[in-house]
């Protein structure tokens, strides 16, 4: 499994392409842009975009969708049944998708917005706006922020430490690092609740279990 990373200078957002090692049908996460560089990367890897996963129906995640649909006959997945007038497969909480050889688990976070989804493929998570390395999600009120902190605590930070996090904005991260250092936990007073062991001996917690990292980027 290979990962292509593309950064949109226009949107300050990340787009990811996930495909087999030797080319073939691929998944694109968040078509924030489809420019020549991304297209070249897709073609260089001999990928055909068959599926598009949308973490949130916001412009920074969708601006390249119309162009992409002109090039590839891709199936769309999001929380909404239509995105930019294109029909879309609706993703519900706990949905498991089998896209070719990829098993994709979807996790919805209505606490952030009714169209917010995180997708997990193996030990990689594409979390969109849920959080960004070290930073909590952008929210409109303290109430939403508090709700999000609880939701992340119950349904996101429960995942394995070796999970690699690919956010919609900013650099990548490791679940263990986010559990220890993300400000959403600190602001909610949660950061040390069940992590005392990790603080005492962070280097003893199983990097040997860490899965294969992604490779390739644009």
């Amino acid at each position, binding site marked *: 499994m290979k990962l292509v990373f593309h950064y949109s200078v226009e949107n300050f957002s990340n787009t990811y392409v996930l495909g087999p090692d030797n080319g073939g049908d691929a998944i694109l996460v968040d078509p924030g842009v489809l420019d020549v560089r991304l297209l070249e990367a897709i073609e260089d890897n001999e990928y055909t975009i068959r599926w598009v996963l949308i973490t949130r129906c916001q412009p920074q995640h969708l601006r390249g969708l119309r162009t992409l649909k002109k090039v590839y006959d891709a199936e769309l997945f999001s929380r909404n049944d239509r995105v930019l007038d294109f029909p879309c497969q609706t993703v519900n909480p706990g949905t498991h998708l089998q896209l070719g050889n990829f098993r994709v688990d979807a996790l919805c976070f209505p606490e952030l917005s009714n169209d917010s989804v995180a997708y997990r493929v193996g030990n990689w998570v594409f979390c969109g706006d849920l959080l960004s390395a070290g*930073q909590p999600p952008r929210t409109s009120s303290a109430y939403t922020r508090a709700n999000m902190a609880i939701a992340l605590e119950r349904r996101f930070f429960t995942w394995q430490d070796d999970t690699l996090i690919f956010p919609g904005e900013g650099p990548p991260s490791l679940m263990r690092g986010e559990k220890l250092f993300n400000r959403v936990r600190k602001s909610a007073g949660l950061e040390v609740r069940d992590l005392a062991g990790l603080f005492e001996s962070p280097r003893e917690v199983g990097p040997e279990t860490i899965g294969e990292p992604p490779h390739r980027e644009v």
Partner: protein
Amino acid sequence: MVHGSEFCVRHLPDSASHLGILSTMLSDSRVFESLSLNRVPFAGQNWSGKSFDGCSFMGSELSDMNLDGASFRHCFFDFSRWSNVSAKGVTLLFCSFSGAQLKKVDWTGSDLLHVNFNSLEASDCLFSESDLYFSRFVGAQLKGVQFVDCNLKKTQFTGSRLEQVDFRYSNDDEAEFDEVTRTP
């Protein structure tokens, strides 16, 4: 797991010979993809000009190394420890160093783009003349670190503790310094 093995390095029946094989592999080739080198101790190696794509060095120790001109894309160095490393003119793209410890590391003239340095502990390090666009030092502890003549556009130092950190000639007005503790 150590790359090519069923074991993590400390549980290998003959870890010394396995590390020797890894060392030979790393010195013989120039381009590496998808290597898993977690918790491996590296000392005195010359990776100058080599290219690493999608490799994992989590929890590893790098000491007395030469990484000048090397390229790391999509690599994970979380909770690694670096000391006495020359990394001038390095390209780091979309990498993660969260919880890492750096001591006497020279990144002068490097492209450190989209890099996660959250909760980094760095002392006596040089980032001067580097491009740190969109990198993050959230909750980092930096002591005696130089960011002279750097591009700090969209670089975040939120919640960091900065002691004797030098930002001369850098566009630090374009960086974010929320809740930062500074000691001159």
